[in-house]
């Protein structure tokens, strides 16, 4: 049921992208997202498409996985497209009562749709090729400088990795409790919205109880192993840039330069 969301779902494979340093991938994804907003013409989106297609090819992850994440944003996407189409003033090409579609609106809707879809697919590439643990490691490392201004970077990273770790566990737990209650004749599908909400109680109460129990157990296990926060803590696998990371940064720089050039020349 909730399994459609690709974000945070690692796909094991052996590719260059999987082997890249998580920091490289994170910066790369960020730059790609920025580039989507730098490009504002269709040739520009063409360049982004080529870049994205290249990355999908390199990742060795089946294409269907990339687009699975889109299901989750489908409603947002639809709303964006419809509102942009109807509410942008300009040259009218179709009108029905107060509803009118303008040429500018159509272009704007197309642009927004491309941006949204590429945004999700682009970040899916990162999450599909990077384990959640690598990702938080990378983030912790990138945000390291914030430590100076007393941002608890390590604690944030730890919370993130625990949260990520618990998503599949809680999902499994939800599934289990749901089935157990269904075996007792519970009904999670029919009824109006109030009834449905009420029917959720037999699911939510045990789920919360179990989440608190797990949190408690984990805290105890961490304390038993003398966890005391990030101070003086070293890593088992410290992150280190390799040749392929420098190459990747080179490609990214070229891609971004292309985007800026497109913008300056107004293509």
């Amino acid at each position: 049921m909730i399994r459609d969301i690709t974000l945070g779902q690692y796909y094991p494979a052996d590719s260059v992208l999987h082997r890249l340093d998580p920091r490289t991938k994170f910066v790369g994804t960020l730059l790609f997202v920025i580039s989507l907003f730098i490009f504002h013409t269709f040739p520009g989106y063409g360049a982004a498409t080529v870049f994205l297609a290249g990355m999908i090819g390199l990742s060795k992850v089946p294409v269907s996985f990339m687009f699975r994440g889109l299901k989750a944003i489908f409603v947002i996407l639809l709303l964006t497209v419809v509102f942009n189409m109807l509410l942008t003033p300009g040259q009218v090409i179709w009108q029905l009562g107060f509803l009118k579609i303008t040429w500018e609106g159509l272009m704007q809707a197309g642009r927004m749709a491309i941006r949204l879809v590429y945004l999700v697919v682009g970040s899916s590439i990162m999450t599909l090729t990077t384990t959640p643990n690598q990702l938080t490691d990378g983030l912790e490392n990138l945000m390291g400088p914030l430590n100076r201004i007393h941002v608890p970077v390590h604690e944030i990273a730890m919370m993130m990795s625990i949260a990520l770790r618990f998503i599949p566990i809680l999902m499994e737990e939800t599934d289990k409790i749901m089935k157990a209650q269904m075996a007792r004749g519970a009904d999670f599908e029919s009824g109006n919205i109030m009834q449905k909400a009420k029917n959720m109680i037999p699911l939510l109460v045990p789920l919360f109880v179990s989440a608190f129990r797990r949190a408690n157990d984990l805290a105890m296990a961490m304390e038993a192993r003398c966890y005391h926060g990030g101070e003086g803590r070293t890593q088992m696998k410290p992150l280190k840039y390799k040749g392929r990371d420098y190459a990747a940064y080179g490609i990214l720089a070229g891609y971004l330069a292309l985007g800026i050039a497109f913008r300056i020349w107004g293509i």
Partner: protein
Amino acid sequence: MSIELKNVSYQYSTGTAYEMRALKHINLTILDGQFMGIIGHTGSGKSTLIQLLNGLLKPSQGQVLYNGENIWGEGFSRKKLREQVGLVFQYPEYQLFEMDVLKDVCFGPKNQGLSQAEAEEQARKALEHVGMPKELFGKSPFELSGGQKKRAAIAGVLAMNPRILILDEPAAGLDPGGRDEILSQIASLHRTRKMAIVLVSHSMEDVARYVERMVVLNGGSIAFDDEPRKVFAHYKELEHMGLAAPEITYVMHDLKERGLPVDTGAITIEEAKESILKALKGEMP
């Protein structure tokens, strides 16, 4: 009254990187009033199998028939099926949610459409049947001990008056005393309510004493389906599957190898004692 599995296969996460075949071509019939055990090592497909029995999972291939009717056929009410085929999951204590024990046990009967009074009567009966002390009926289920929670959860399914009761590792996480108590109460349900019972476990010892038929699962297929004593005769093969026959089977086989004419099919210590005494008396009249 019977459940029949016809050439049933099941795989998880079809079409993804994590595809896994859990069950392969299972043929199995569970008859009314039978006390059956399903044994298998972790990952042998036990839990998947029982979820197919009450329609929580849909088989990837094959058919599940209840009294000859396909449960995935059009117009078949799987909600009604679940009233007939009660399933108690492993660690059922995590399904409790109500303010007090009695209300929690009422959840099932009320879903069946019984009135408050009728549901409460069913719940009281079920709670008494699993040996829950009366003074605990009004307590919050979260204040109970592990064994009591388990009883409350089993009562929650029992209160729906199923024809067949399936229990997944009902004794998991209990101390030996609590384990024997719960298992013998289940056995008494079988006797007094004439209910068919399917007991799922990875421990031969637990199951051997009670069941009349034993199905051994290995790697998603049925390896043996017979009376316990006949299954234990294959104790060498069972070991290969990561299962062990009861201790007593080993003792009896060793004795026989050393020349004492004992019955190697003895399952309980009582039976073994009788058989050894008889053999010894036969030798020394």
